[in-house]
């Protein structure tokens, strides 16, 4: 065991949620080098959408990531709206904000589920997936689907809020607030959990920024960066919420940031539903956009996701590039892994919130 050896953790391995490979070089049990290998789930999404009409791409955007499909769906619609030169009605903007934040909570709970399994606690997994069900029900009521919502449309949203929706949401949020405290107690008062997360996978803010990290991982390294504040879209400029940061930059900090973010998301949902103005939820858009290109970025649950769209005046996009936050976060993982033990790999990569669907596209 004194020689170094390469270990392929993947493409089929219990720790990677999705189809990818992490090659790690071990000296004993300590990692001396790491290399993520992706591409096992490459579906040619960007080529595929070049041969689809604009409205046809909306459900395809859902399939970029099943964990947070609404955020991709919304990003595509927002980009297309800017390309078409239309703007969604005010009511649609508020509904989108509420739906997006619900999606953020479900996405974070899915992430917590994955962290639980990676660290070996199936209780964390089942509890968080139970809590997630609350929001899946709400989103199902809103859009009619549980996973791939296909809810946003170019020029608004598909349908208005269902009857008594605000009441249901507020009840659910009250219930979730209580359960979230239980969930936090399960981890924050759990000595083995702290042993596994404190001081692991450390990265400071400057390095993280240079490596392109965004989202909760960057915020956990002590960078107050949130595109909802820095580059507001939809109705986020009117929302009052805090950007959750943590200074340690380790696995525990990343866990903490996401848990706090769920609280902030709950605040935003309440605000957005309470302040939503009356009016239509969708406007008509022309069939073909004008020539040109447009770039649009939003704060996905995992970080900065960006779409760059080029139109040649026909009914299909000429080029659509997706910047997936996970793609870059994953490329920045080797510096976090080196120097830690192989047992820390699931902890470090687990809090990354891997979604290979959007990474490989």
């Amino acid at each position, binding site marked *: *065991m004194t020689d170094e*050896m390469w*270990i392929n*953790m993947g493409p089929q*391995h*219990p*720790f990677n949620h999705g189809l990818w490979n992490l090659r790690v070089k*071990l000296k004993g*049990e300590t990692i001396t080098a790491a290399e993520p290998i992706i591409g096992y789930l490459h579906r040619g999404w960007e080529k595929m959408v070049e041969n689809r009409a604009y409205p046809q791409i909306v459900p395809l955007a859902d399939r970029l990531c099943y964990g947070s499909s609404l955020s991709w769906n919304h990003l595509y619609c927002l980009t297309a709206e800017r390309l078409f030169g239309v703007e969604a009605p005010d009511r649609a903007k508020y509904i989108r904000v509420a739906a997006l934040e619900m999606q953020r909570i479900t996405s974070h709970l899915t992430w917590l589920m994955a962290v*639980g*399994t*990676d*660290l*070996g*606690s*199936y*209780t*964390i*997994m*089942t*509890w968080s997936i*139970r809590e997630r069900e609350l929001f899946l029900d709400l989103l199902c009521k809103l859009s009619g689907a549980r996973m791939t919502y296909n809810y946003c449309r170019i020029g608004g949203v598909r349908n208005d809020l269902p009857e008594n929706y605000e009441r249901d949401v507020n009840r659910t949020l009250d219930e979730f607030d209580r359960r979230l405290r239980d969930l936090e107690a*399960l981890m924050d008062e*759990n*000595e*083995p*959990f702290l*042993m*596994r997360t404190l001081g692991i996978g450390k990265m400071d803010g400057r390095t993280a920024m240079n490596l392109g990290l965004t989202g909760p991982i960057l915020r956990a390294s002590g960078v107050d960066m949130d595109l909802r504040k820095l580059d507001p879209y939809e109705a986020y400029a009117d929302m009052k919420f805090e950007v959750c940061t943590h200074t340690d930059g380790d696995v525990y900090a990343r866990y903490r940031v996401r848990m706090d973010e769920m609280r902030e998301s709950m605040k935003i949902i309440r605000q957005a539903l309470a302040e939503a103005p009356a009016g239509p939820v969708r406007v008509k858009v022309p069939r073909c956009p004008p020539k040109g290109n447009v770039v649009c970025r939003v704060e996905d649950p995992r970080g900065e996701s960006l779409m760059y769209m080029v139109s040649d005046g026909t009914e299909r996009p000429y080029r659509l590039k997706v910047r997936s936050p996970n793609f870059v976060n994953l490329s920045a993982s080797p510096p976090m892994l080196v120097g830690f*033990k*192989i*047992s*820390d*790999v*699931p902890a470090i990569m687990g809090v990354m919130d891997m979604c290979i669907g959007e990474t490989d596209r």
Partner: protein
Amino acid sequence: MATLYTVLTDFTQWLMDLIAAILDWTKLGILSDLGDWLQSAPVVDFVTTLLVAVIYLITVMMFALCFIWQERKFLGRFMDRRGTQVGVLGFFQNFADGIKVVLKEHIVPKDSDHALFEMAIFTYLASTFMLFGCIPFSDNFYVIDVNLAVLLGIAIFAFGPFSILVGGWASNNKYTLIGGMRAAAQLIALEIPLLLCVVSVVVLTGDLSFVGIVAWQEENIWLIFPLCIGALTFFIAAIGESERIPFDLPEAEAELVEGWATEYGDIRWGLQMASDYFRAYILCALFTMLFLGGWAGPEFIWAEAWFLAKTFIVFFFFIWVRAATVRIRTDQILKLGWRRLLPLAVINLLIAVALKVAEVF
């Protein structure tokens, strides 16, 4: 008092008499001699022991299988789900699983060391089954009651890591190799505090047979009260020895797939998996006998029932720990074993010696 031994001795005697009578009836000198030999005391004794062992093994395996069922149901309740549902209260799940693994194909990796690969799992299982022989159910339902039963049991127990290491190495797989190494390191680190706790019990009771230890506790006091530190140390070390969460590093599925047993399939894997529960059963039984007074209890139910009830309660705490915690790292386990449990065990031993010297009991 008609114990199992006396009943079975009568039965064997009757059986041998019958066979001898049939052999006599043939009027062949050589067969009559065989009949006489079969009636002799050593043969009757041997056959009786064999019969007791078979009955005992089947009984214990049934109860150890109940452990799997108990874990499934209790873990389910801890996680807010129902647990297995196959058959009556989900009890047939074990049999379904058993039939499944029996029907699987036996695969030996091409470049593995075939002889060692087969031998390792065989010795591992053999040592587990041998342990059953050392653990009595009550003072009249046991296989052997040698004077050094405690030492014998612990010695057989310590044989496990050797098999794991050999099996992990022979599989020719990096995961199994790391798993085997971890198992060896972890089991040795926890074996010593475990043994010191047993020694403290032996010092206080002055007996090395389980029957004697339980009799002493029946006369004086359950040892969990004077030796509470030792009971706690033994409990923690026992969780580690049975390779359960939070100490299931040798088969941490998030990083090592299935640990040292990755390459085993079919019934070998099935028995290896069951053998984790057999070992957990043995450790729970040891805990019951060393600290909880074994089969001692009010006599409105059988002594065996008392013994089993206590064992199941101890295992309930095992499940509780598993449901509440996450897996911890190898270095943390070693640190825990050498720096925390070992001093505690030594302190406990000193207490036992002091109690003995002061002749409190």
